[in-house]
């Protein structure tokens, strides 16, 4: 870690550098502790006072909490040093290159590629296959369930890819986000009316599970970078919103998937 901080703070002499490194790390660590205190408080309160039970395996709990704090600290440092610069640099480079086709292709690949292997989505797809099998929508055999789950996964990934493409187009053209979101909501309402009842809960949830911890910073930096690199766009008004599309389109597509099968 010292190396990265060195490149960032080259102008300091070594004594000052050590001091700034130590204070930065310490601040980052206390931030992480503060971020986790609510969970620890909630779990402690409910376990000890409401349920009236002891904390099982205290050593494991302490080790786990230590790892979570350390992990969050490293993640936030790496975010500023790695993921944000990548997303923004690539956005500027695409803008400089000026090829709309490549940019949209990149947007699709980023949306599709980060979603298709997302562990939370794989878990939801498996549960959904079970619902479909029990509800009699597909045969209750392992291969039928696997096919269904895989089809659902690709459907969601496709919809997220298209969502990022649409979101990038919106940034380039400067379309107001609320009109597109209203359109999406109307789509969700229409699909809800016509889709099989069993799929609705899964479809609504699939919007939320697609955006992972790595995707969010990358996509956010891409959007903000694009909006800042194009004249006439405001990064605050136009730069955000990519995640919103990625949470909306899977709902429509998954209900569509439920109707086709």
């Amino acid at each position, binding site marked *: *870690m010292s*190396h*990265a901080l060195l*490149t960032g703070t080259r102008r300091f002499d070594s004594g000052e550098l050590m001091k700034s490194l130590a204070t930065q790390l310490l601040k980052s660590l206390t931030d992480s502790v503060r971020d*986790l205190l*609510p*969970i620890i*408080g*909630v*779990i402690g*309160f*409910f376990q000890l006072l*409401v349920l009236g039970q002891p904390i099982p395996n205290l050593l*494991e709990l302490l*080790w*786990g909490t230590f*790892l*979570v704090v*350390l*992990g*969050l600290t490293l*993640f*936030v*440092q*790496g975010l*500023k*040093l*790695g*993921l944000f610069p990548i997303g923004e640099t690539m956005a500027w*480079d*695409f803008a400089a290159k000026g090829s709309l086709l490549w940019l949209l292709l*990149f947007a699709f*690949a*980023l949306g599709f*590629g980060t979603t298709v*292997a*997302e562990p939370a989505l794989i878990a939801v797809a498996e549960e959904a296959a*079970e*619902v479909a099998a*029990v509800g009699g929508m597909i045969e209750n055999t392992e291969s039928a369930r696997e096919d269904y789950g895989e089809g659902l996964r690709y459907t969601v990934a496709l919809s997220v890819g298209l969502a990022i493409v649409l979101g990038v187009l919106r940034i380039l053209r400067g379309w107001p986000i*609320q009109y597109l979101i*209203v359109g999406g*909501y109307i789509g969700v309402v229409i699909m809800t009316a016509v889709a099989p009842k069993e799929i*609705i*809960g899964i479809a*609504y949830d699939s919007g*939320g*599970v697609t955006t*992972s*911890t*790595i*995707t*969010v*910073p990358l996509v956010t930096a891409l959007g903000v970078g694009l909006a800042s690199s194009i004249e006439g766009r405001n990064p*605050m*008004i136009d730069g*955000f919103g990519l*995640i*919103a599309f990625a*949470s909306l389109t899977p709902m429509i597509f998954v209900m569509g998937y439920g109707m086709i099968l």
Partner: protein
Amino acid sequence: MTEYLASLGSSFVTTIDDVLPIIGILAGFQVLVLRRRIPNFKGVLLGVFLVLLGLAFFLEGLERALFPLGKLMAEQLTAPEFLGLTGAEVNIAEHWQDYVWVYLFAFAIGFSTTIAEPSLIAVAIKAHQVSAGAIRPWGLRIAVAIGAAVGISLGTHRIVTGTPLHYYIITGYVLVLIQTWFAPRSIIALAYDSGGVTTSTVTVPLVAALGLGLSSNIPGRNPLLDGFGLIAFTCLFPMMSVMGYAQLSEWNAKRASRTEPEPPGD
């Protein structure tokens, strides 16, 4: 000790495995299409390594400590004995007050997991940078967390009463649209984004356990059908709370500028 380290190691490998497609896409486009040098390339590489390492530690710690306990608590709080369900329940919908601990737990766990959500931290940092400090990261995160907390407790209430999911969600959409009309324009996109970023690594497993516990223990609910939907609630309400937070800040600023003779420096 060695067992702990081995498990940490395998967690790191899993994380790399999950992230490999993303790295492949980024590297592919960088090398084949853009062909430009990334400034401070070594620093960026180190940053990516830190993200992977941090995420591996984070996930391993969650699996070790918070998830087992959180899921166990969700099960215990929704167990028939704790809820006082004797099996002779006539009408659950009339006894929804009995579930007050469940609602409180849903609210508290929703708030606290959202505060710890790394993707929300990322978006809050970015929003702070982009808005030149106007949006405070901590304020945004608390607004989102309150929204998520309200959403999850309302979602558990829906499971208890068995009302159709889409009634709530469509009403929520209408409210979001009405609020969009009145909210400051610069917050709208960020508010819409905050719905999706809430539900990630920390929140989803615990919320799913809560939904599963409730829907399998309350008579007349089917875990396969009614267990879903909590994530959708968690996505919806932060949009409202973030727009509300912006409206409140704007209102405060207006009031402050009215008492002072100076014109607002907009």
